[in-house]
């Protein structure tokens, strides 16, 4: 008789974590490979193409970087809130509101000289995104509302607000009735550095800034302590409400910057696809990196490869988009699933002893009990 139990494991060692993650990635490749085989392609070739599609040429590499930038910056923003255990699910909305703030100046003040206009746009984006996150922060500080729900709901408000602008007051009159907002003037578009818009520089600067902020400043220390335990924070004399407000403002502000970068450099206008799910994907990135800024660079890069490679194989192999999505999802599933094995282990009991009475069998209904 074999009994299977799930037991909470001690904190895994570094080597064990690496081993589990490697196994997860191999498992992901094998399972996905089987799927690719099933739809009639050679998995090895497809994998090679994904890599090629992401790094194969200067153009593709640039595309990959462009995809990584919003993911990385949004993840940095989310991580600030997550450090405080403030579950900010609202980066998507904060990105949109950031884009809105930037677009306001891009559209209404396009005469302002370029560097100044771009700075104003950044400030406006950070402000709008920050304020958008401050609302749930304030509600939580004041009445202890659940931030996951409030931030999530505010995503939809932000989205509909952009749609409203697109179809209503900001509709481009010269677009022959097509519901779109006018393209930005050249003054409002981020310049390129090494062929990629300078968002990547902003991203790398932010990685350093956030890393230093969290680990070496007083405010960062307060955020981490508060995240560990509100009571400890109060006991140490911290102003708990102020910490919530600061962290949410910062978290949303950084997400807002993503909106500015995407609107200015990628879509050159404001539309509802500006965030494109980056705010949600970034949650996974922040979490997989263990909220550590340097790791986010790597993880965001991998996600960008997945997306870019995924879209490349669509054209290269005529694989429908849904199949490409399945491949991405399978890989994600395995990697995220491996987290479970870092916290729990499965124990097989090969017991040679016969169990006492029939009564005892009752208790074996729940085989896998976490403890």
């Amino acid at each position, binding site marked *: 008789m074999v009994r299977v*139990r799930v037991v909470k494991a001690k904190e895994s060692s570094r080597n064990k974590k690496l081993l589990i993650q490697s196994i997860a990635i191999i498992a992901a490749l094998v399972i996905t490979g089987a799927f690719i085989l099933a739809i009639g392609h050679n998995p090895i070739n497809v994998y090679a193409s994904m890599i090629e599609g992401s790094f194969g040429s200067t153009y593709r590499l640039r595309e990959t970087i462009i995809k990584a930038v919003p993911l990385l910056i949004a993840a940095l923003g989310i991580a600030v809130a997550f450090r405080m255990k403030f579950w900010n699910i609202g980066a998507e909305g904060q990105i949109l509101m950031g884009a809105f703030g930037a677009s306001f100046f891009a559209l209404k003040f396009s005469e302002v000289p370029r560097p100044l206009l771009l700075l104003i746009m950044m400030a406006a984006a950070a402000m709008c995104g920050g304020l958008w996150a401050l609302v749930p922060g304030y509600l939580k500080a004041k009445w202890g509302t659940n931030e996951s729900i409030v931030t999530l709901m505010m995503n939809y408000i932000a989205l509909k607000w952009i749609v409203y602008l697109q179809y209503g007051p900001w509709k481009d009159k010269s677009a022959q009735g097509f519901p779109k907002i006018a393209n930005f003037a050249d003054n409002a578009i981020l310049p390129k550095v090494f062929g990629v818009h300078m968002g990547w520089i902003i991203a790398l600067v932010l990685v350093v800034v956030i890393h230093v902020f969290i680990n070496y*400043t007083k*405010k960062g220390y307060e955020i981490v302590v508060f995240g560990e335990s509100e009571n*400890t924070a109060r006991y140490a004399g911290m102003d708990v409400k102020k910490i919530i407000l600061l962290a949410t403002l910062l978290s949303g502000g950084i997400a807002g910057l993503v909106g500015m970068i995407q609107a200015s450099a990628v879509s050159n206008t404001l539309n509802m696809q500006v965030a494109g799910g980056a705010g949600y994907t970034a949650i996974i990135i922040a979490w997989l990196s263990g909220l550590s800024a340097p790791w986010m660079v790597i993880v965001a890069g991998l996600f960008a490869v997945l997306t870019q490679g995924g879209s490349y194989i669509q054209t290269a192999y005529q694989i429908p988009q849904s199949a490409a999505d399945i491949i991405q999802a399978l890989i994600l599933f395995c990697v995220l699933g491996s987290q479970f094995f870092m916290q729990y282990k499965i124990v097989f009991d090969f017991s040679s002893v016969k169990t006492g009475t029939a009564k005892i069998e009752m208790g074996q209904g729940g085989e896998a009990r976490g403890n």
Partner: protein
Amino acid sequence: MRESVMVELKQITKTFGTVLANENVDLVVQKGEIHALLGENGAGKSTLVNMLSGIYSPDSGSIFIRGKQMNFSSPKASIACGIGMVHQHFKLVDRLTAKENIIAGSGGSLFVSGKEIDNKIMKLCEKYDLTVELSKRVQDMSVGEKQMLEIIKVLYRGADILILDEPTAVLTPQEVERLFNIVGRMKKEGCAVIIITHKLGEVMTLCDKVTVLRRGKNVKTLEIRNTNPKVLTELMVGGSVDLEIQRIQTENKHPIYEIKNITVMNSEGVKALDDVSFTMYTSEILGVAAVAGSGQKELCEALFGLLKLKEGELVFKGENISGKTPREIYKKGISMSSVPEDRLGMGLVGSMDIVDNLLLKEYYTQKGLFVNRKSLKAKAKELVERLQVSTPGIHHPVRQLSGGNIQKVLLGREIYLDPDVLITSYPVRGLDIGATYQIYDLLNEQKQKGVAVLFVGEDLDVLLNLSDRIMVLCDGRIMGIVDAKDVTKEEIGMMMAGQTLEMVKNQGGIYGESKSS
């Protein structure tokens, strides 16, 4: 004799990761026997009984219940076998009534007959001299009532092997006596009772046999009549110890912190402290005795500036500091230290190392935007050395240290702040004997230095020996403040149960001859 053996554990071994919690432990409990499991914290007592109650399963070794070998896969299987465990932290649903708690999870058919259940419960209560109000909600019960309910719950499920985990930790002396009566009845009815404890007095008065565990191994099983507390302590600790607590005489006592008529509400808007007034003196340990939940937690937090006062004033050296936050109090140049009851949830940050935990009380005194950890490394090393904290290093997360070492880090940090007032709440709870006495020494040392110490404790013997004065709280009110030299344990117990000092002194003659003194 074999038939009368209810529980037999043979060569039980259990490891958690690399920690050996139990190693080849044997235990035999007979019918009608009260068996104490004695040992310091971390000796493996809880692990052992958790295997008996089906929460863990042993890595090796076997469990026999009434002679049959068992292999419990879940608590349910253990309950079905007649084993009932009363946990130290009660497993009751606050919002449900006593009756609902009793029948919840007890299985049976889909529909239950209320009357039948009532009858069954009433019979049990009669048999064991228990009382319960079936329609009362758990949230409205006192700790003693909750414990009674837990006992009824396990008996209702047909348990005749009872495990009580630290049952007296939260009870007044009178409630303890009541509990002992009940346990005595169980013994008479032929139950086997296993009691986990580290209070020697209880072992000596209540139990028939005692098994001492040390570091996961069993040291010895003894008949109570053949042993004494001193022998048991030495077995527990593994060497001889000086069990005396000293009350050091100090001079130069003068008032430093005056608490004037303070009233404080708890989170539910109920008065947690009601018109409390007293004065703390320098070079003095003021003990606080109270049943759990009588307002001592709120008292500590209010004195430290963490709770809003509804009424009253806090006056430190003539200066009114009511309504000030801890940070504002600090800015006034007053050094107040506090060792809260919840060490990892309030006093320390579990995932951080010793350096970062020292930073908690220091970072705001540093200049600039950045934290400076350099200066604290030396301090951390000094703390580890001076208080003999056993840790792999100063950069090890404190959560992974043992309870005693966690407490040393916390108390050490607070002492380093050079406090005028030191508020400590259950500073030795869960600590082994060695660490406990070290903490007492540290408190005495602070007292000698002139610090005004508030000591909220649970062991009345310790309170009586260590404190200069003892303040007794009941339901958020002060029942009396007495000189520790002029009061007995029983008198304090009666005050904890709600009688004022005068009432107690007036009937002192009647109660003075209590048998348990």
